[in-house]
């Protein structure tokens, strides 16, 4: 009888589709993982509580799937209807049967020569609506796949990869649209957030993160510098259905290290922008690092949290910014509420009442090298973050330490790297990493778990746990309240992606990619 029930469940599940309603209420469904940040708020908090501090030590792999594709795996797999859908580097993707851990179908596309890539042919995952899966390809295209077969339904060019545009982001489905961002701010691109019709692949709107002549914000760009202004948008944003606003982080201005050629604040680089979902028009922006010269993208997860500040409930958006500060803003208006450093910084002497950094002199990159903390990668970089409403804490990775920022003047050549410098480690004072837990309302660090290197993305669960991995291949569970390590497993290959959690046949699984291997853990 029980078996029959499972057959029924399986048959029902095979027809499961992702509806807009399911996306809006994703947090109430503990069994699935429907979108990059698990819910529209970007919490990465699984309501599952079978695995707890008491039994996490018994976690063991249920199955391991080698994808066979080299490169850094940064994907967040989606889980629905007894299937897992994940993307890999170099334009690969797979559907996996949750019962057996075997591939059901594979998708791949060619990788053209002549791409401008800072960080490999990585990809951060699918979005899903109905029975369609959406992913970007590295050569700046957006593709819709049939979730049953992996066959291409439509493919739309986003931009010209020969000019330095590339795409790595996991798309975000909003209503009947697929929203994506671009990479390439080290190649003199002009960034944007795009929305495409989920049925046809036709573009609905484009919001440029760097204004052009005649537009508001152009006064923040000296001369023609806006034309190569950068402002990439390579991490998935979040969405508030009630306010109908899409929140997206914007990357560095170009060229990264040479601020002299682009005088001004360089809007809307290194800012969070709130975009009207229907029109693609800017509702508000908040720029964390005006006139950035350290490559401190503001692309980290803009996580939507409802917090109480001075006794007042506020619909807020929080971000652990690459510049070393955690920021809290009112997400309806963009008003600055608070910010606190979560790592060592030496470039700002606090912030003004409006949240603008008070700069310390002589921290710009120079040909001789300038020691700045945090380094080029931050602070917190892109690695997915987690917010647990259970502990009330916000968890993210940090790189702690300083780097030498070097300036090398450079002329712009279309399609070529336009960074004008680099950052170098200080051999005698190497950077370390940590898992940071902050109180999202105040930005106060509640605990910091120090590690030898930067950890990967975070998963928080209702079992009171935080899961993360490291570049030596350790997958670990920390106590969400204290940061104490409760369990670790040597997977044998670097972990760069965040873990996910879901159920299959009523049991909680924790899945993560390590090197080329997808590993699904469960209790015995």
């Amino acid at each position: 009888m029980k078996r029959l029930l499972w057959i029924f469940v399986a048959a029902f599940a095979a027809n499961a589709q992702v509806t807009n309603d399911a996306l809006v209420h994703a947090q109430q469904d503990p069994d699935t993982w429907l979108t990059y940040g698990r819910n529209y708020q970007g919490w990465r908090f699984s309501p599952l509580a079978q695995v707890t501090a008491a039994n996490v030590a018994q976690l063991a792999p249920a199955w391991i799937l080698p994808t066979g594709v080299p490169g850094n795996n940064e994907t967040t797999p989606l889980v629905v209807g007894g299937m897992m859908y994940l993307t890999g580097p170099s334009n690969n993707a797979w559907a996996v049967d949750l019962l057996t851990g075997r591939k059901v179908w594979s998708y791949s596309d060619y990788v053209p020569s002549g791409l401008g890539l800072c960080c490999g042919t990585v990809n951060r995952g699918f979005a899903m609506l109905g029975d369609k899966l959406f992913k970007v390809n590295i050569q700046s295209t957006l593709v819709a796949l049939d979730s049953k077969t992996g066959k291409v339904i439509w493919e739309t060019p986003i931009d010209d990869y020969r000019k330095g545009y590339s795409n790595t982001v996991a798309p975000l489905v909003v209503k009947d649209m697929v929203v994506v961002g671009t990479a390439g701010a080290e190649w003199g691109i002009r960034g944007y957030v795009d929305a495409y019709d989920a049925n046809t692949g036709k573009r609905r709107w484009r919001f440029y993160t760097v204004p052009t002549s005649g537009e508001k914000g152009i006064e923040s760009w000296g001369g023609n510098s806006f034309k190569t202004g950068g402002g990439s948008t390579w991490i998935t944003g979040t969405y508030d259905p009630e306010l109908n606003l899409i929140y997206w982080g914007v990357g560095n201005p170009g060229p990264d290290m040479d601020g002299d050629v682009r005088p001004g604040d360089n809007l809307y680089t290194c800012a969070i922008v709130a975009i009207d979902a229907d029109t693609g028009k800017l509702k508000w922006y908040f720029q964390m690092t005006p006139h950035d010269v350290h490559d401190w993208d503001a692309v980290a997860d803009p996580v939507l949290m409802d917090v109480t500040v001075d006794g007042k409930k506020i619909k807020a958006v929080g971000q652990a910014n690459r510049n070393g500060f955690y920021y809290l803003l009112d997400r309806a208006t963009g008003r600055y509420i608070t910010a606190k450093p979560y790592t060592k910084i030496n470039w700002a002497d606090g912030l003004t009442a409006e949240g603008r950094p008070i700069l310390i002199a002589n921290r710009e990159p120079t040909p001789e090298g300038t020691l700045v903390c945090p380094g080029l990668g931050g602070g917190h970089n892109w690695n997915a973050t987690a917010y647990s409403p259970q502990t009330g804490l916000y968890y993210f990775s940090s790189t702690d330490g300083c780097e030498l920022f070097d300036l090398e003047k450079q002329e712009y050549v279309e399609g070529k790297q336009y960074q004008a410098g680099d950052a170098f480690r200080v051999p005698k004072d190497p950077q370390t990493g940590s898992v940071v837990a902050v109180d999202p309302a105040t930005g106060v660090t509640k605990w910091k778990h120090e590690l030898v290197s930067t950890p990967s993305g975070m998963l928080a669960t209702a079992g009171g746990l935080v899961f993360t991995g490291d570049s030596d291949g350790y997958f670990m569970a920390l106590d969400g309240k204290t940061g104490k390590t409760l369990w670790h497993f040597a997977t044998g290959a670097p972990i760069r992606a965040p873990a996910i959690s879901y159920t299959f046949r009523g049991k909680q699984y924790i899945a993560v990619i390590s090197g080329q291997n997808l590993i699904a853990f469960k209790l015995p």
Partner: protein
Amino acid sequence: MRRQKARAHSDLRCFLHPRFLRNGKRGRAERPIFTKLFRSGGLLFSLATLAFAQTNPFAGNAQAIADGQKLFLQSCAPCHGATGEGAQGQAEGMHPPDLTRGQFKAGRTDADLFRVISEGVRGTLMPSFQSLGSDQIWRLVTFVRSLSAVSMSYTGDPAEGEKLFWGEAKCGECHTLGSRGGRLGPDLSRGNRRNNADRIKQSIVDPNADITPGFAVVTVVTRDGQTITGVERWVDNFSVRLIDQSGNERSFLRDEIRSVNRQMRSMMPGDYARKFSPAQIDDIVAYILKSQNKANMQ
């Protein structure tokens, strides 16, 4: 005292000079190709043509090195780092090889490097750069080659230095050079362009001035109070492995020890400047540079 100043280019480079190769081709290029292919020795000739097609037309050419460097910064530095020694920052996790030590997984010849840049390397993150075109790829090859040219500008006597290195100065007890030596210190078998006489001299007289990554000093205190100090093999979030002062490698789980401490300092004795004369140190430097140059050019 004998003073010696050697040239950076090996004899091999001279044979690969474009002048030699161009002359070689010109002699035969006048005849129609079909006639030639059907003549006796035609096959040999077409192989020679093929070999020419895969020969670097810019080998050692200073302009090509300069052009190649520009291309390198635009196309290669994102992963391989601006100096070619491997990436830092964003691409760090990609583990690109060090291109500055004259040792390439792809092969030994310029044609091998050309092939790798042009086609990429399957099973790795190295993509194809065919779209650059062969002229630019050859310039890149020429620049990459120049990265492993060890400075041969030294004043000491390599023969005297060899005696000191393996004898009185005991360098070989901790450092490998070529096929022998110890493992407590960095392997000195191969150098790179930045490895000049001043840099080596500084490392000998002040070992803490420039620590090679991966050679920190690690101190483990066990639960029973024993202290073990050695050179790190690794220190990760859950374990430690070191080479102790007797040369034994030992692993520890962090759970099972009391503490672990990692210091970015050198275990090398700091008294070389007192024990040896400047001339003797120059001799050791000369021996290291000469050996590295030989190894890099092989």
